[in-house]
């Protein structure tokens, strides 16, 4: 089997598992919904203000919700020693990593697509800047979250109290990406600044950490 074939097979397996159980997507959705409602209670902003703070709220909600899915990435493979089977199999570690990262990317994208209308309704959002750039920010930002998230989830699954370990590892490293996503979204929504710098920074973040993850993942998977 070629390495892209392995990626495809693992991805298909994960998607099928998720389609049948809907564990990750349901818990993520409900969690994000709760965050949206609680935020909108606690701030109750006007349309002008909400445009300014929405970028932060949206991405913080997605970040927290993504952690729910990311935590399940590898924990799911602990049952029946599937992770050990991966380790002894000749399948390249990177195709496994890519499959997991793509799977998480799809889950978080679905979440965003479902949650975005809710945000628009609750916060009366309308982009004053170029709205199509929001799509670019969403794609790059989501990848930034899941590429490091998938990598650190593989690390945190080997620790005690692994559920809490993932955000502790992920959040400090994610700070520049989160700042870029939030600032880009706010710039587009308010139309006051150009979002170009932030999009370039996000792209750089994605490239750097995708390379680093692919380079180092084998070490983490095989660490014993």
């Amino acid at each position, binding site marked *: 089997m070629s390495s892209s074939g392995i990626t495809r097979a693992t991805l298909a397996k994960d998607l099928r598992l998720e389609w049948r159980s809907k564990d990750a997507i349901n818990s993520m959705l409900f969690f994000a919904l709760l965050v949206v409602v609680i935020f909108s209670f606690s701030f109750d902003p006007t349309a002008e203000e909400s445009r300014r703070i929405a970028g932060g709220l949206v991405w913080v909600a997605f970040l927290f919700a993504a952690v729910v899915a990311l935590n399940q990435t590898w924990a799911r493979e602990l049952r029946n020693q599937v992770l050990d089977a991966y380790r002894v199999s000749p399948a390249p570690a990177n195709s496994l990593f890519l499959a997991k990262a793509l799977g998480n990317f799809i889950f978080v994208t679905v979440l965003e697509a479902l949650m975005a209308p809710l945000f628009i309704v609750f916060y009366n959002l309308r982009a004053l800047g170029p709205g199509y750039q929001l799509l670019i920010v969403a794609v790059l930002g989501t990848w930034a979250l899941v590429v490091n998230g998938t990598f650190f989830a593989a690390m945190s699954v080997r620790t005690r109290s692994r559920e809490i370990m993932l955000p502790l590892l992920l959040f400090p*490293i994610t700070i*520049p990406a989160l700042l870029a996503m939030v600032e880009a979204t706010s710039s587009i929504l308010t139309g006051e600044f150009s979002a170009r710098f932030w999009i370039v920074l996000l792209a750089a973040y994605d490239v750097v950490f995708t390379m680093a993850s692919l380079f180092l993942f084998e070490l983490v998977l095989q660490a014993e």
Partner: protein
Amino acid sequence: MKRAFPILAVLTAVLLSYGLYGALIVAPTEKTMGDVQRIFYYHVPSAWTAFTLFFLNLAASIVYLIRRNPKADALAFAAAEVGVVFCTVVLVTGPIWARPVWGIWWTWDLRLTLTLVLWLIYVSYLMLRRFSTSGQTPMMAAVLAVFGALDVPLVYFSIWFFRTQHPQPVIGGGGSIDPRMLHVLLINWAAFSCFAVLVCWSRYHLEVLSREVEETQALESLLEAGNSR
């Protein structure tokens, strides 16, 4: 090597007390800020020392990733731990100085934010080491150190742009420094560096010893299990 330790300890004590004397008495009082400026002689050397130690941690982590040398890992651990302590000193002394001088405790300035993010990354590094189940810890910690290092330039650029876009509080940059002040600063820097080396050294030694003890105990229990059968 063993004999060098007490010599270094004495040197550190002398330098630290001379540095304290210099900072409190020799250095002239700053014209506008007054005596509160003297915290600078502790703040800046701590920052330099912390950054040096984080750099040492990265270097040792890379050596570990290449050579799998457990001693490099012990050194990385010691450097990270002592580095976090010095970085904490920086983050605590900074606001104490900033409040009377800038009128605010904290601002999202480039250097402040970078220091805070570095501190967060290294605290998460120490948490990982603490919570990780033994055996895989050194590898994962070394990988995290590399990720943290890759993050630093990205944090730098993001904050740099973030700040140029938003209003910035006035920060007394540039200007020349009184040579007596510089002298005291350098003495304190030397003292803090010696102190850091001293603490790192004993922490490293402790780490190596505790690993040896663990290995011996594991071996002994194995032998006992073998004998009782």
